[in-house]
């Protein structure tokens, strides 16, 4: 692999032990996956769960990161106490979490504590190179923004943040970005689909497509950005899809032919109402029943979604025995507060869990505190809760409207 003199120096330890360790990891990965050189990366997003011993090593001697870098939700969640979660659920993680956050902030990483950096000023554009760990951001960045990022492990994004480099490989190259797995939508009037139905479509596609690039054709209506988020984000948990073109909608898919690069797809499926219902019911692990917790915001809620829930909850009250949580970024919360949405939701009894992950982290907290039934509008969260909180918590999966109704009545589909 070709290295510039500066990159070579980084590898040789001339810029300190942390940068050396980071560059060596990037070089080894580049050599494994056929990279001929490094490319400059100016937009990274890192997870908050690497062991503190490793964090100390990779940042040793690093005074300032070289790429603009944002942080994933905090580990553990900072709102556990007001959420009614026992200290035992977070105790072992608190000290490490605090030190990790301090180290990362100290070298210039931005504490946005969100899985949706694109809602908090970390913007991508077509062709921009990015290294975002946290799989929902990777597929949104590649598909909707047409930026170029690989499914980078947490350690790769940290190494890229520190060095400002990533090996040029895989999805960075146009020839690796064409669709391989074609999904033809059948008789779906997408205007009336809920976020849960978009999620079910994505969940079904991910399970079939594995790690192949997906192309969806036959989407007649343009979904909102939020619905794109619900469509794309489950493909990374039922499968490992990092790029999904939507013909007539996403930048690299003006036509089906362009999305496929003029080639035939390796596989083709059709998807209609039956597949949506099948995926939807596979994500419900319990029959309609009393609900203890409603969790929204996986991926993190947008201002528009917060406004939508404020409209649904205006003048209503969350049932006494229900905990109603909305996960979002602190910055999005602040704007929603100014707009008056936060007060409406909090007055109704809802609670914002800013900087907290509504997927695996809420599942961990639920398991540790014995919460039996959780309702969510996110296919991605439903997948994680069913696994990480197994066998303690069961999942009810439906639209935002159904989740709000469950919050108000305390019952599913009452």
């Amino acid at each position: 692999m070709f290295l510039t003199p500066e990159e070579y120096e980084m590898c040789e330890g001339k810029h300190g032990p942390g940068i050396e360790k980071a560059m060596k990891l990037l070089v080894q990965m580049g050599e494994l996956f056929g990279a001929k050189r490094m490319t400059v990366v100016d937009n990274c997003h890192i997870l908050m769960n690497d062991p503190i011993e490793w964090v100390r090593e990779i940042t040793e001697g690093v005074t300032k990161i070289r790429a603009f870098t944002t942080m994933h939700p905090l580990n553990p969640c900072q709102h556990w106490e007001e959420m009614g979660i026992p200290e035992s659920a977070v105790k072992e993680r608190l000290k490490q979490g605090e030190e990790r956050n301090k180290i990362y902030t100290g070298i210039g990483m931005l504490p946005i504590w969100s899985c949706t950096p694109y809602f908090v000023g970390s913007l991508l554009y077509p062709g921009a190179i990015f290294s975002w760990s946290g799989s929902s951001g990777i597929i949104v960045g590649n598909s909707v923004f047409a930026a170029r990022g690989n499914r980078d492990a947490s350690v790769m994004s940290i190494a890229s943040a520190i060095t400002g480099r990533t090996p040029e490989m895989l999805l960075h190259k146009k020839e690796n970005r064409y669709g391989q797995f074609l999904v033809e939508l059948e008789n779906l009037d997408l205007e009336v689909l809920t976020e849960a139905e978009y999620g079910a479509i994505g969940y079904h596609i991910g399970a079939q497509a594995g790690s192949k690039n997906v192309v969806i054709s036959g989407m007649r209506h343009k979904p909102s950005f939020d619905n794109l988020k619900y469509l794309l984000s489950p493909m990374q948990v039922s499968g490992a899809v990092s790029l999904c073109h939507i013909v007539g909608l996403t930048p690299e898919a003006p036509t089906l032919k362009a999305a496929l690069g003029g080639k035939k797809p390796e596989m083709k499926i059709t998807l209609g109402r039956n597949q949506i219902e099948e995926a939807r019911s596979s994500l419900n692990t319990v029959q309609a029943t009393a609900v203890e917790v409603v969790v929204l915001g996986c991926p993190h809620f947008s201002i528009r979604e917060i406004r939508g829930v404020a409209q649904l909850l205006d003048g209503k009250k969350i049932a006494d025995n229900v905990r109603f949580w909305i996960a979002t970024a602190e910055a999005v919360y602040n704007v929603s507060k100014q707009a008056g949405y936060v007060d409406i939701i909090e007055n109704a009894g809802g609670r914002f869990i800013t900087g907290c992950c509504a997927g695996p982290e809420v599942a961990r907290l639920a398991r540790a505190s014995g919460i039996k039934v959780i309702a969510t509008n996110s296919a991605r969260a439903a997948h994680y809760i069913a696994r990480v909180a197994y066998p303690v918590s069961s999942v009810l999966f439906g639209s935002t409207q159904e989740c709000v109704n469950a919050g108000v009545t305390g019952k599913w589909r009452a």
Partner: protein
Amino acid sequence: MELNARKVSDGRAEGEVLVCNGPFSFLGDLDPITGVFSVKGHELEGQNLAGKIFIFTTGRGSTAGSSVAIQAKLNKKAPAAMVCLEVEPIIAAAAIAAGIPMVDRLDKNPFEVIKTGDFVKVDATKGIVVVHE
């Protein structure tokens, strides 16, 4: 029997083999505190991976997999070495960052010539896997 392989992550190790006939993710499949394979209903449920030569098809799953691999290694509960058919980016980064010796692309299909319980030496740096008959 000596097999040639491609180095994924440097190092040498020897030990007893555990074969997993499918893809593997550190996050979700392995408990980094105990080293136990923790997927309910899986053929390997309850088996301990610590110190084993772990053979599987390829990696899958969350970008946080590398974090769990490092944690398992710090706890001395990681596999001694890993062998797979073909790596993907998450499992490769996990092996390199955690310092677990690993190879892929063996010149014979490991699922045909190596089985659970065999004693195997892996020299990942040289790209050699030796199976003791």
